[in-house]
Each structure stands twice: as C-alpha cells, then as structure tokens.
C-alpha cells in the first residue's frame, strides 16, 4: 500500500467524526485506525520496498521507515490506553470524539513530517501537529492547562517561525551562489556548503535553533515542563513520544544534508544547546517535587543527551538512535503511569506518594522499570546510547564536554532516583481502597514495557539493519 495512506487515512477518519452520528464510534475508530497504521508502518520495515519518491514531496527511505515504525505503534499503545480509560470511566465518553478527531489528525501530520522530502512540507506538517495538539492540552475547568496550552502554541510558533526564517536564508544563500533555490531534500546536498554566502550560516543556525525549540532544548524550553505537566497523560505521551520524534526527523534530515559542509557550526550549536539543556534540567529535577514536571525535566535532559550525541556525529549515531527509540517508550510509559498515579492519589506531589508497589502494583512496576531505563541502567537502550556518546566524546577530544556530561548525568541520576525510588518502595502513607487495576487497562503500558526490555536485550536484524542505514546517512562523508 502507498505509504501516503499513513497520512491520509487518519486525517480522513479524524475529519469524518465531524458527522454527529459517527461520534458514538470514536473509540473504535481510534483503536482501529491506530492498529491499521501500526500494521502499515511495520510492513514498511519488514517488507522493505525499494526507495520511493512520492510525487517528489515524500520519500520512503531508512529514516522514514524507522520513525514510522516507532511512532505508529506508540500511537497504538496510547490509543489503547485512551480506549481503556473511557471503558472504565464512561463520563469521559462525552468529549472523546473531539480527542479522537484531533489525535488522528495529529498522527497523520506527524507521519507527513516523517515522510516529507521537502523542508517546507515537513515544516507545515510540524505546524499542523502543533495546532491540533494545542487544544488537546486544555483540560476542561483548569485554567492553568489553558495557559500552558497557550505557552506551548506561542513557543512552537516562535520556534517554527525561526525555522521558516532559516529556510528563507538558506534559499537566498543558494541564490547568492548562483543556484536555483530548492528545499527538496534529495536535491539539497549539492548546495550543502552554506558558508559561501553571508545568508547561509545564520540560516542554518536559525533552523537548528527553531527545531531545538520544538524538541524542548534550551534556551527555549520553558513551554515543555508546563505543557507536559498540565496536559492529560495521553496527550503528554503524544507530545513526548510522537511529536518529539517527528521534529527529530526534520532535524536529522537537516543534519544529513548540511553536516558534510558545515560540521563545525552544527557540532558547536547542538553541543551548546545539549549541554545547556542538561544543566537546566538537572537543576530543575533537584528543585521540583511535582511528579509530571520531574519526568518532563528528565525529557529535556534526554533531548540534551540526543543533541550532544548528534553533535559528536561519527561513531555515536547508532547508539543515539537506539537511545531515541528507548526514550520514546520510556516517556510513553512514565507519562501514562504518572496519569494513573495522579488519578488515584489526587496529587502530583512526590512526597505524598509512597509504597506504590503495594498500593498499585502495576503502576509501581511501570514506574520502577521506567525510572531504571530513564536513568540509563543496563540493559536498556538508554544505557548503550549514553555509553556510545561518552566513548565518542573522549575519542573525538571533547574532554570538557565529556566531564560536564558525566557530572550532569550523575546529578540527574541521584536527583531522580532519590525522588522516585521512595515512591515505589516506601511505606504507604495512607490507607486507600482502590478500584482494582485490570490487566486490560494496564496492557498498553505492558506493551511499551515489553518492547523496551526486548530492545535492550535483543535488536531484531531488520531493526538493526535499519539503524545502520540511518546512521550511515547521518555520518556521511565529512561528518
């Protein structure tokens, strides 16, 4: 099937919910579409077709295959979580169709960003994910969530405006060098050396800064903890595990095109943003007592690690990609689990939550394993990713960055562990009578957990081959 179905099907199904009599089937439409999308996305990996160029504006290569196969199953897990929540709490059914319509448009646009072969198409797809995610962040009756949603839209608009400005500058750099300007990714490598024109380097720097804003990297990261903390858990998981990766694909495309001619600029900017993100996240993790905010700051920390890994380039990319994959599952598990914990304890204050393993065994295990993966324990992908980045930092002579990375990772490790482990192992502070957790409601998180653990122990050859191809494209000549 044409991979553009991954874009069209969810958008058509989402828009069809505008018809009132179809709204009653919203939950089934969500899970059914997500299941179809996952099957299609995995088929692109397991049954590899030759590289396709879809009308020139889309392409199916190793990078798009990898990320389609990552974000669509995660979307399926989130959809199953939402369906199980609605089944357990009929009151949520009333506004479900609105969530489903927006979420399906969101995944369609995210798939478009991944499949895009034109920078402007990818930019528009990211903008659409932002516009449909903004109202999803708003929780009825909670003014703070509306403000968080506004800040999310504001920062995203500014970040994407910077990206657009960067594209405009890069276009002028091509014109100044006497070339016909283009934003088609497969034609761009011929004009990758941007330093010949005064427009080139500022343009490239703006594109990276703007995409960094979408990824939650410093300096423009403040929207992230606020939006992640205030949004409903399913929406936070969508933002952290799906939108993050869609934006990352655009950054990977830019790096693949421009690194050979501009390695110095890309390395310096990504390393600076990565280190700054790790610093602010480490300080904030120490200071916060809010469970969801803590996970959000850890997400900023992870974005910083990924930025540093991409900055180093050669030798780290495979590890960074592994880190990205495990990071997506970790965020999905932790944010969905945080939602469950908050719904039961009616608080997000980590000091008020204790003895989870006795109180909520499923959530206790999810939080425990998710935290271990978050902290980079073996055998998870995050461990191998961090190890490969540390090794590459030493071999490439970035010793100051290596030292700073070690200090910041250790600080984050201690600060996160001292908050989360007592929540899991401590004595329950109050006697609660809980509605029993069923296997069905826990199954989406079990799915994420199983994938996370399996990927830590064994990488299937199809996936490993894909990772190698993506790494090779990012480490092409000159990087």
């Amino acid at each position, binding site marked *: 099937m044409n991979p553009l179905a991954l874009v069209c099907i969810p958008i058509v199904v989402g828009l069809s919910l505008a018809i009132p009599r179809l709204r009653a089937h919203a939950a089934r439409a969500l899970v059914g579409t997500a299941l179809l999308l996952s099957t299609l996305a995995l088929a692109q990996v397991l049954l590899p077709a030759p590289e396709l160029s879809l009308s020139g504006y889309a392409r199916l290569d190793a990078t798009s295959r990898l990320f389609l196969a990552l974000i669509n199953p995660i979307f399926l897990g989130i959809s199953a979580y939402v369906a199980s929540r609605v089944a357990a709490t009929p*009151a949520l059914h009333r506004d479900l169709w609105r969530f489903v319509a927006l979420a399906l448009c969101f995944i369609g646009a995210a798939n478009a960003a991944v499949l895009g072969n*034109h920078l402007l198409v990818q930019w528009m797809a990211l903008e659409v994910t932002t516009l449909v995610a903004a109202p999803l962040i708003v929780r*009825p*009756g909670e003014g703070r969530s509306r403000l968080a949603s*506004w800040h999310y839209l504001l920062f995203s608009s500014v970040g994407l405006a910077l990206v657009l*400005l960067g594209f405009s500058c890069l*276009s002028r750099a091509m014109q100044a060098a006497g070339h016909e300007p283009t934003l088609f990714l497969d034609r761009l490598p011929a004009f990758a050396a941007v330093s010949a024109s005064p427009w080139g380097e500022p343009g490239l720097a703006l594109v990276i800064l703007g995409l960094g804003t979408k990824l939650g990297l410093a300096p423009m990261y403040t929207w992230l903890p606020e939006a992640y903390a205030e949004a409903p858990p399913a929406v936070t998981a969508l933002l952290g595990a799906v939108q993050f990766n869609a934006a990352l694909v655009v950054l990977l495309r830019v790096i693949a095109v421009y690194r050979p001619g501009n390695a110095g600029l890309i390395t310096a900017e990504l390393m600076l943003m990565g280190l700054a993100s790790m610093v602010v996240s480490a300080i904030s993790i120490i200071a916060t007592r809010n469970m969801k905010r803590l996970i959000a700051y850890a997400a900023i920390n992870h974005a910083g690690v990924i930025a540093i890994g991409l900055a180093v380039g050669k030798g780290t990319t495979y590890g960074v990609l592994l880190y990205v994959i495990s990071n997506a599952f970790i965020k999905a598990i932790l944010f969905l689990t945080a939602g469950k914990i908050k719904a039961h304890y009616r608080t997000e204050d980590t000091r008020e939550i204790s003895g989870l393993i006795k109180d909520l065994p499923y959530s206790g295990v999810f939080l425990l394993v998710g935290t271990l993966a978050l902290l980079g324990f073996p055998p998870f992908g995050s461990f191998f990713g961090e190890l490969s980045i540390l090794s590459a930092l030493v071999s490439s002579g970035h010793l100051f960055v290596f030292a700073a990375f070690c200090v910041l990772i250790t600080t984050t490790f201690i600060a996160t562990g001292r908050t989360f482990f007592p929540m899991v192992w401590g004595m329950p502070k109050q006697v609660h009578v809980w509605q029993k957790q069923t296997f069905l409601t826990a199954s989406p998180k079990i799915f994420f957990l199983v994938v996370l653990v399996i990927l830590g122990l064994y990488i299937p050859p199809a996936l490993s081959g894909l990772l190698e191809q993506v790494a090779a494209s990012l480490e092409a000549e000159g990087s």
Partner: protein
Amino acid sequence: MSPLLIALLGALLIPLFVGTWRTSLLGLSAQGLLMAALAHRAAPLLATAHDWIALVDLGLIRGLAMPLALYVVQKARGARARNDVIPPNLFFWTLALGMGLAAFNFSEHLVSEPGEPQTLVAVAVAGILLGFLVLSGSSEPFSQMVGVLRIENSIVLLELSDQDHSAIGLELAMLAIFVATLGFFCWYLATLKEPAEPSLESAPDSSSL
C-alpha cells in the same frame, strides 16, 4: 529609501511607543497593507496565481482580517485601552531604536549593494528583532500575539524580495495554516481569562484522558 519602506518602518516603530492595543492592531494592519502595496508594485499586472495569493495573504488576511478579528475579540472581552507591548521605559525604547540601527548595519553585511533590496532586508530584520523585543518584554497574551505576528509579517516581508516562489499548493497550504493559527490566537485571547468550566474530573477514577 522608498516611501513605502519608510512607512513600513514607521508602522513597526510607532506602536511600540504608543501604548494602546488599538495602535498595535493598527500597526499590524498597516504592515499587511504596505506589504501588499509592495507586492503589487512588484507585479502590478497580477498575471500569476502567485501574485493573487500574495495579495490575498498580505492585503486581505494580514492587513484587514487579522487585525479586525483581534479587534473584535479585544472589544468583546472589554480589554483596557492601555496596553504596552514593551515596558514603557527609556531602557526598552533605547533597545528598540538600537535594534532598528543594528538591523540596518546587519543588512549591509547580507546585501552588499546599497539600494531598495538592502533597505527591504533591513526593515524585515528590524521587524524580526522588534518582534522578539515585544515577546521578551511582555507576559500578556495579547502582547505576545502581537510579537509573534510581527515576526511572521517580517519573515513574509523578507520573502517578498525573494524571486523564487514555492508551488501554488504549498503557498495555499501555508496561507491556510496562518489562518488557522490566527483562529487559535483569537480563541486563546477570548478564553484565557474565562471562569472555570464544569469538569469531567468529578468521576471517581478519572482526571482526564
């Protein structure tokens, strides 16, 4: 320096020193209409679909519909007349003027030959920098929206001097995205200070999805 660009620079600077929201909207409207005049001057025959899209985008949407929509929302929510998009003090005023000068210096680096293209780039860069100044100095949603819209208008101005055009479909899609963004801005402006709505969260085992 052409009169249109002088007027555009005025439309960028004056609303910073006159602290009312109506002046801010007037400034945005003037930016859109002046950019439409610049686009029309470059292609007076309106011979291509691109020329028409540019005219609709700049004149109709940015020059008229956008300020009007924000005006209606501001009126409906009973916004106070006074609204400083930057803090009204000498420091910020000096910064604003300094940014204008810096933009003109920077444009000499970007476009080596003096003339209208260089001035257009200078005005566009000034607009982007002043947009960031507005964003950095304001915490009110309305002022933040004005800051973002100033930046977006200035990027469009920069693209006006670019002879290369995207495919019509892409231009229409970008226009649609801008209109949708504007719709969201109006929605936030209208609802950010609303009283709490009834919640789904009274259900025992639920906060939300």
